[in-house]
């Protein structure tokens, strides 16, 4: 540990010497410094706004999580806000209901995230495999779910899933299948499908964009060598979009662990399965806006962010190892 820091310090030392040399030394090196500064200045407008509109609220929320609000008597006297340190975090870490919901969302993510990734990648490869004119048309169609507002998507799928009026029901009857999308046992499938339907278009767009930077000449070379299209896709295109694949994968993990809208929707149709504490985001929402404990909700949000961060880091490592 200490040796690592030593090395770091040594490097830093060298770096500062270099800077000093640049400042006092030849004009060419100091021009490099100005160039670096100018380079950094490209990011300043963004980070100024980012600090104001993201970091400041995060810090405010962090502050919130360190306090506790308590009433007394009948509760009418107004509540007392007291500093309570990490009490809210301790309570969150020991909150069985919260971790149960985390486990639920986690197991869901384990199934749905890879599935979404595979389907999205397949789509991106398919779109990449046709001529550009055709691709344009399909890309547009595949983005339709992405463009349909969430509140309307909800209406659409409730109709399609409906065991009474849904169009699949007669098909199921014909095949003598007893499938009810609203039943407790099917709820994950229904939610998963809704989720995948809504997200593959976006993922496809990102992956497809990445695919287009693959040098086209590689394909020709491969074709000349007699490689099949499938082979080309798997061994040339896929490795090329690995970064984007990791990116969309991480986004998918973040999205699924924070899943909220879909289960809330299905809470109405299957309340005995989807309780108010079904997913971590639902626990947080319930604490903040129903129970009215903003302090605890803030602490839970931070724990959730931590778990999502760790999960993302682990997956990132893992995919990197597999890739190399």
């Amino acid at each position: 540990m200490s040796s690592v820091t030593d090395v770091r310090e040594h490097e830093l030392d060298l770096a500062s010497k270099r800077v000093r040399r640049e400042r006092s030394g030849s004009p060419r090196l100091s021009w490099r410094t100005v160039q670096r500064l100018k380079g950094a200045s490209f990011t300043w407008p963004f980070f100024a706004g980012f600090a104001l509109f993201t970091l400041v609220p995060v810090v405010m929320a962090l502050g919130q999580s360190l306090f506790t609000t308590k009433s007394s008597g009948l509760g009418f006297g107004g509540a007392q806000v007291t500093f309570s340190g990490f009490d809210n975090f301790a309570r969150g870490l020991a909150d069985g209901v919260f971790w149960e919901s985390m486990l639920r969302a986690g197991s869901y993510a384990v199934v749905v995230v890879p599935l979404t990734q595979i389907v999205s990648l397949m789509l991106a490869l398919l779109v990449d495999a046709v001529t550009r004119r055709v691709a344009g048309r399909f890309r547009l169609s595949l983005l339709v779910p992405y463009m349909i507002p969430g509140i309307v998507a909800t209406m659409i799928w409730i109709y399609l899933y409906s065991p009474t009026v849904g169009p699949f029901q007669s098909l199921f009857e014909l095949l003598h299948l007893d499938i009810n999308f609203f039943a407790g046992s099917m709820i994950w499938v229904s939610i998963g499908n809704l989720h995948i339907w809504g997200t593959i278009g976006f993922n496809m767009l990102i992956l497809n964009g990445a695919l287009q930077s693959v040098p086209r000449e590689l394909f020709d070379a491969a074709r000349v060598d007699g490689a099949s299209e499938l082979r080309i896709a798997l061994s040339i295109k896929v490795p090329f979009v690995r970064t984007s694949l990791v990116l969309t994968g991480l986004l998918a993990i973040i999205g699924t662990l924070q899943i909220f809208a879909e289960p809330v929707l299905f809470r109405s149709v299957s309340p005995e399965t989807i309780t108010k504490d079904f997913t971590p985001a639902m626990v947080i929402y319930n604490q903040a806006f129903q129970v009215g404990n903003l302090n605890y909700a803030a602490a839970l949000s931070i724990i959730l962010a931590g778990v999502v961060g760790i999960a993302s880091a682990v997956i990132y490592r893992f995919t990197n190892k597999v890739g190399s």
Partner: protein
Amino acid sequence: MRSGNRRALALTAGLTAAALLSGCSTGTATEPQGKPGEPVTIDVWGWDPVQKQVVDAFNMSQDQVKVKYVQQADNVAMQTNFRNVMESKKDVPCLAQGFAPLATSLVNGWAQDITAYVKPIEDKFGAGALSAAKLGDKYYGIPTGASAKFMVVNSKTLKAAGVEAPKTWEELIKTGKALAPSGTKVINLAGEDPSVLLDLAQQAKAEWFKIDGDKWVVNLHSPETLKAADVFQQIVDNGLNSTQTYKDRPALYSYFDSGKLATLPTQWWSLPGLQTNFKTSLGDWQAVPIPQFEGGAGQGAPGRATASIVPVGCKTPDAAVKFVTFALTDPKGIEASRTKDTGTVAVPAALKDVSQYTEAVVPTKLFAQSPKEVGKVIADAQANVIGGFEQGPDYDSWFPQLQDQWGKAVAKQITFKQALVNVEAYIADDLKSKGIAYTIAK
């Protein structure tokens, strides 16, 4: 300390307001604008679009109070934004359409004591409306009134089975058993909506929350509550109910329309929706009073008002009360709420007698009866509305838990009694964590 100051402030404000009110009632029309003091401007928050028309009419009718209506996107938006504005304490409205039970508003530090303003005008309101605006003997809410429940029954379906519309809950179960062989259900119990349980508990005169000195007495296991739970237990155990969700509207309406459902407890404002979305059963329906419990006389019609409140931080409660009196009880204010879409006036639930308003809201094709007869059923229900049902200091917290437990009970995973036990335990935990004093009744 702080609340003491606030009360003193409210008192002084009350005195001046009383003077102002009496002053205006004598000479509003003739008084010129040059009175000392500009008109008071207040913000009123709500999510009902019709309210805007009432506000305009009010602003036209007098020049002492000017109301600005802030329309929220919906009930949920109202809750979120109201919580936020009370947090920032900037531009707090003087009147907020009710979205939470009174005790909850009070615990959150939202509602002002407006007894001094409501007391003088008590006689304008119905008993149900008044009881829902009070906590103990103080008014913390505007007597907004609640839409009373009555029932519509499919007379064709009942006739086919040779039964009458049930008058009691016990009869309803019998009716259900008589209908069962033909696959017809007597009532729909949506898994996400436990409000029917509250209805019956209210009718049975259960008291889930009661103030005893300086603590709350919580009781979800009284004989009254269990009587209500037992009705549902029998219905579910015998498979007499359907479980259509309100989310799947096409399915819901087509089921109601199919003749396979015999009764539907409802409120007046649901009727146009039923007519719009029914096809085959139009003209088959009949409005009847909501069933009562056997043996208990004068139980009344269920209906729980969420009273509008005058938020803490509003400096001119008198102006708010003045507006609300106009909106809820003045014939001109009520007339101003006529909607363009239907051409009808909303039933003014705050009034003692609404019989002159009910006939007009009855859709013409739905019923086997004349609109007049249906109107009478609605007006009678409204006259008997119970209004009050104390839901305690943490309703927002326990209601989702009740939903969960109710959903499980309807799905036959647990009994209704067990569901109530679980909710009671949850309430105890929640009050404890909030530092609110309580005891569970013996």
